């Protein structure tokens, strides 16, 4: 029973850690499927986390906070679009610029608004996404296995957790079942085919970036108003890049990308668990080295896996063919 509880606990931790990854990865999916490389997921998330916490703290409304997070993230996505679509700028440089700008600006504005060294004040409960308890969760909590699964794993999360996991089928549906999705996939593979079919390439890419902005906005709001109750500098802590890694690992397809996020989330949860979990002092020599090194190895596993994938050692990852290349009509 204890082992079962441990598994439930791990899975629960995995879910919580995976939420921002799933949202950001779906965000990146829209951008990259349209042919725009987005290494600015990190910056958009961070910007949204700040905007959500700041507006939440100022207005006391969780919804206004979420809206602010989304607007901030969409604005950054449009800046990326303006540089990369309208001005054919380098997409990687633009992404780097956005990441660095946001890392600086969030702290500058945070200090200007709250004078707490870049942190926002603790958010009151009404400005946070709190856990939703599903009907009957408490009643069935003692039922073996199923009860625990229901009350611990399904129930008891905040709204954004459910949003994140609903975003996956929604993304799948949009990408594979709608006109927009068909054009989105086409514009990332063969913009000239889209152009000759009488569809605006720039228009499609801007629309994709708006969706990217919205999803990244939710991811950011989750960090500051759901997972924690305040914004703290650099709080995205590389999650945007892990999401990018998951996006590549899932080969730009919604369900595999989600699974990659869950895998990476699991690794993160496991690494946190493992640190100090072993009685290192009693082990000796090589075993000891392995045990102490394990959490770090698990930490970098997502990145190593992506490199191996890109190198073609574990399957192949073929990016949308037109990604990274500004669309200029050929003469």
């Amino acid at each position: 029973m204890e082992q079962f509880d441990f598994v439930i606990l791990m899975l629960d931790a995995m879910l919580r850690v995976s939420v921002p990854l799933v949202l950001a990865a779906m965000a990146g999916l829209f951008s990259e499927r349209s042919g725009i490389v987005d290494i600015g997921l990190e910056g958009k998330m961070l910007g949204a986390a700040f905007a959500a916490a700041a507006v939440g703290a100022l207005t006391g409304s969780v919804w206004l906070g979420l809206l602010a997070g989304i607007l901030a993230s969409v604005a950054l996505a449009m800046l990326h679009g303006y540089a990369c679509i309208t001005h054919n700028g380098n997409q990687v440089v633009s992404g780097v610029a956005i990441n660095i700008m946001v890392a600086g600006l969030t702290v500058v504005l945070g200090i200007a608004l709250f004078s707490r060294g870049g942190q926002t004040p603790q958010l009151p409960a009404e400005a946070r996404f709190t856990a939703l308890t599903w009907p009957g969760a408490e009643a069935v909590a003692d039922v073996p296995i199923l009860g625990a699964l229901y009350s611990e794993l399904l129930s008891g999360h905040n709204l954004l957790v459910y949003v994140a996991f609903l975003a996956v089928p929604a993304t799948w549906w949009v990408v594979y079942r709608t006109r927009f999705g068909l054009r989105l996939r086409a514009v990332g593979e063969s913009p000239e085919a889209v152009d000759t079919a009488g569809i605006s390439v720039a228009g499609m890419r801007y629309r994709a970036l708006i969706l990217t902005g919205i999803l990244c906005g939710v991811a950011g709001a989750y960090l500051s108003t759901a997972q924690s109750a305040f914004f703290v500098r650099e709080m995205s802590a590389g999650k945007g890049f892990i999401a990018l890694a998951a996006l590549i690992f899932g080969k730009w397809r919604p369900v595999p990308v989600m699974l990659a996020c869950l895998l990476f989330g699991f690794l993160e949860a496991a690494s946190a668990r493992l640190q100090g979990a072993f009685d290192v002092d009693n082990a000796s020599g090589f075993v000891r080295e392995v045990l102490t090194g394990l959490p770090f190895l698990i930490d970098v596993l997502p990145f190593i896996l992506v490199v191996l994938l890109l190198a073609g050692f574990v399957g192949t990852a073929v990016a949308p063919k037109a990604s990274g290349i500004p669309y200029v009509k050929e003469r």
Partner: protein
Amino acid sequence: MSEGGASVSERPEAATAASGRAGLPPAIELRGINKSFGPVRANRDVSLVIQKGSIHGIVGENGAGKSTLMSILYGFYQADSGEVFVDGRKANIVSPDDAIAAGIGMVHQHFMLVDPFTVLENVVLGAEGGALLAEGKAKARSELQRLEHEYSLEVDIDAVVGDLSVGLRQRIEILKALYRGAETLILDEPTGVLTPQEADHLFRILASLKEQGKTIVLITHKLREIMAITDNVTVMRGGEVAANVATKDTDTEQLAELMVGRKVLLRVEKTPAQPTETVLTVTGLNVVDGAGVRRVKDVGFTVRAGEIVGIAGVAGNGQSELLEALAGIRQPASGHIRVRDQDISAEHAVDARGMRELGLGHVPEDRHRMGLVMPFAANESSILGYHYDPAYNGRIIMERQKIIDLCAAQMKAYDVRPDNPLLTSANFSGGNQQKIVVAREMERNPDLLLVGQPTRGVDIGAIEFIHRRLIEMRDAGKAVLLVSVELDEIMSLADRILVMFDGAIVGEVAQSEANEQVLGLMMAGVSPDAADEVA
């Protein structure tokens, strides 16, 4: 995404003036189309009439302005001036959307398909018929089955396009256009990438489309195709219409002449060649391109010291690939290249540097893509391929002044203007850029000089100069292989002429026996004996 953007207005006098035999207005009429790209005039005052229900050919050499004209008709570019009439009514086509609405479909030379998509998805892209795909796809499926049946355009609707052959992909492009209700179908060089069998199949499809009342515009440089299936033909040359004729009233020779034009003959003073030992021997050479198409087919020939061997042919018949294989840029699939007594087999191919070390010089066909590095200063471009030469390399440091002096000397000898070795390569005119390349390759005194399109985009003065130099190289006992699509150039320079068609050498003609008619027929794939009889 706008719908019905083509504004159409009545213009009755145009309709009657240009009406066809059946009394119908022409499917398409172009009047006085002009289009420039910067200083280049791609179309000059082009007017032509395309009858409804006919197959209309547009022929011309590369760069004659055919594709530009059709891109204007399809709304991909806007004409600087001129008018377009569709079904006798003036049409304002400013985007592909407008062209589609006006019933014009286009099959581009490079297919506009999304490789990972299925055939069905490719066909509905841009014509989905609603925000959700399911319904539109179901509708498209039945419509496609009808179209396939009607025009014998069989293709597996659910196959992924990337897995299909080129011929099948082309059918999808045709289906795409028909699905959008195209009445007029433009095909840009449709057989360039097809096998002869696929091409024959395509022609059968086009014939059946014509039977059903569709209008076909066929852009090509292959005269055989024009003669085989068109009703009327427009010949373009240098951006202008050289002639509009009914196909039955013309023949291949006349079209070849119209296409190439009677240019001022730049006859070069030269004595008969005195060839000595063999420098280059090519045997059984095959070259396959990145797409897996065999571009050079079992080619074999020799070039001797003291002669110029010309390779004639319509562009795109494997000459470029042959030249690149000989220069070590492209690895051959099989065969042997022998330079003097060094044998190089496809299995042990060497790179361009290795070929140069065997005494080979190479003036590439495209100086923008290969001959020069445009952002480099002229003196840096003037050592491209020879940058490792100890003549101006210390152990570590490159001796810049020596390179600049060398470039200055070459510029003087080849009359490059301005003669400034420090100027950026991109800032020279085409003729002067070409002289920089020619000087670089000739001044090394190669035993064998490969020359591709030496005078493309070059002014008359530079043409004469380059031609004279080539003769001097020959007289100095060098072996020269000249690839050119300019018949005049080949006829005035080459001592022996090989003609390439569809990747293979059709035959060889001595300079004394060469004339435009014979060469023109051989360029169309007719064997030399047969060509002789016709001529």
